[in-house]
């Protein structure tokens, strides 16, 4: 391993090293603030190491590859993890009955798994990254083991994810049996052109495995229950980092295997995209639990992303990159508000918790409304520009059915987002269900401010970001 490769691998080394360090630190003495500091610091250091890392595409062993593509998505993932870590601090501080420090070990490991996914060019690293991520997620979901809902969510996710992993692995094995290589590009080269039925089934099973983690319909059933049961920071993590990493992997896999230009895959995924968009939005329609709503809305957003994904090409990939960034920022924003409002007993996930928010916390209510509007795709927010790109990509690739489905289903989506915004600006009939929220931690305040700035920046002046993404995904071939 050359020095250059170690430099390229630095983000992963930092993350894993920090996880071990925290573990050892806990063996000596528990201290929440210190743990958070180490976690946040290591995430920041990992981002820095990405920024200062090699500027040319560097293969790190046959398994991983650092290029513009992985730098962009890793950066996104690490930044999102950073936000979740910062927000978790206040959250767990309020849950005094829960031992919180191990959460950050899991979070760092999950981030390491996600970064691995963005760099993976080999089925082995794909599988390892995925499992490190989901293994950590199991524990993060059921972290509050004294709460029945959390345990239930953990079990559901564990059972279903385990099963889907088996299917994914079997698909890989089928492809491997046919091609004799686990390298994505090499396998694709061997398959070039005709696919026999078994290999086709193999790729289909891999797509099922990925589709499950992205909660595409018809593999979406788990999402709402898991988000509802999980503590809010975990739900935020699962909705942003995990989805982002897996989508990045999907894009890379598809680029290698040319999935979009293969009619069977293209048509099947297009069908899945349409069902996903409608399923997500319809399920969310009258949902009055914010976590479930966000789960459904994230299902729908993954459907939107599939449109740009299927459009392929540089424009399609740019759209995916930008939309993912916008989606992550906005979803984190909504979760940030939820986390800040969550009390000592339960998360602020009910519609009632938001009634009259504008009275108690006008600024927070404005942030909340802004984030939801961005999810709905209204102008001047990141979500609008993102959706614009998705549509542009879809129209450019002549995917008319998908574009129509996107437009119609996102019209539905407006209804449920507005419902929560209306609640936030309504008059409380009864005293708030949650005690007037504790003073916001300064760090959380800063995090929310940064998210708002990002939201508006991407919404008003996205040109610079888009140029960066274009460059990143251009190298990513």
């Amino acid at each position, binding site marked *: 391993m050359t020095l250059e490769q170690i430099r390229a691998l630095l983000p992963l080394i930092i993350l894993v090293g920090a996880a071990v360090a925290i573990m050892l630190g806990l063996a000596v003495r528990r201290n929440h603030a210190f743990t958070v500091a180490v976690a946040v610091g290591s995430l920041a250091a990992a981002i820095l190491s990405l920024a200062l890392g090699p500027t040319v595409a560097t293969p790190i062993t046959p398994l991983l590859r650092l290029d513009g593509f992985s730098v962009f998505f890793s950066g996104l993932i690490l930044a999102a993890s950073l936000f979740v870590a910062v927000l978790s601090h206040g959250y767990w501080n309020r849950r005094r009955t829960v031992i919180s420090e191990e959460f950050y070990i899991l979070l760092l490991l999950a981030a390491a798994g996600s970064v691995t996914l963005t760099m993976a060019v080999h089925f082995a690293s794909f599988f390892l990254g995925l499992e490190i991520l989901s293994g950590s997620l*199991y524990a993060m979901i059921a972290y509050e083991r004294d709460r*029945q809902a959390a345990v239930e969510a953990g*079990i559901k996710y564990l059972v279903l994810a385990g099963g889907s992993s088996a299917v994914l692995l079997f698909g890989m094995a089928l492809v491997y049996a046919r091609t004799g290589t686990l390298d994505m590009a090499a396998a694709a080269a061997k398959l070039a052109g005709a696919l026999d039925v078994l290999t086709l089934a193999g790729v289909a099973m891999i797509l099922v495995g990925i589709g499950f983690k992205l909660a595409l319909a018809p593999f979406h059933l788990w999402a709402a229950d898991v988000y*509802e049961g999980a503590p809010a920071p975990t739900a935020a993590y699962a909705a942003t980092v995990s989805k982002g990493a897996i989508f990045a992997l999907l894009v890379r896999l598809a680029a290698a295997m040319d999935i979009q230009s293969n009619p069977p895959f293209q048509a099947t995924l297009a069908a899945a995209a349409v069902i996903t968009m409608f399923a997500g939005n319809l399920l969310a329609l009258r*949902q009055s639990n914010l976590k479930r709503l966000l789960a459904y809305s994230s299902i729908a957003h993954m459907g939107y992303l599939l449109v740009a994904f299927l459009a392929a090409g540089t424009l399609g990939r740019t759209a995916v990159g930008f939309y993912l960034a916008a989606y992550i920022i906005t979803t984190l924003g909504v979760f940030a508000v939820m986390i800040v409002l969550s009390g000592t007993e339960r998360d602020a996930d009910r519609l009632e918790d938001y009634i009259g928010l504008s009275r108690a916390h006008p600024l927070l209510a404005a942030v909340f409304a802004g984030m939801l509007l961005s999810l709905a795709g209204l102008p001047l927010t990141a979500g609008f520009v993102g959706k614009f790109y998705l549509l542009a990509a879809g129209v450019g690739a002549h995917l008319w059915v998908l574009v129509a489905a996107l437009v119609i289903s996102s019209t539905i989506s407006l209804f449920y987002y507005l419902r929560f915004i209306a609640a936030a600006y309504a008059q409380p009939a009864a005293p708030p269900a949650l005690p007037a929220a504790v003073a916001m931690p300064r760090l959380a305040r800063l995090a929310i401010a940064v998210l708002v700035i990002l939201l508006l920046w991407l919404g008003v002046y996205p040109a610079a970001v888009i140029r960066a993404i274009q460059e990143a995904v251009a190298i990513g071939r």
Partner: protein
Amino acid sequence: MTTVPMMHAMIVAAILLGLGLTGLLVRRNIMFTLLSIEIMLNGAGLAFIAAAAHWKQADGQVMYLFIITMAAVEVAVGLALVLQMYHHLRTLDLDAASSMKG
């Protein structure tokens, strides 16, 4: 010594996967659910071993090592969750864990 054709091994692997899946769908006891997942994973593992033998490579066997490691992780977390679930629900019936829906 005779050798086993890869296709036969793949069929056995597929049967294992199917058996595991069936178990996952029909058994209510969560211990059996976890067992079923193990069976599915081992089906996938067997497929890797068979393919590796076919191509005379070590890659597939390494994948199998990864798979059993992952299976162990799954079992470790899974059993911990089963204990907690029993603690809360006093049953091992997976269908009983359905307080969240809608």
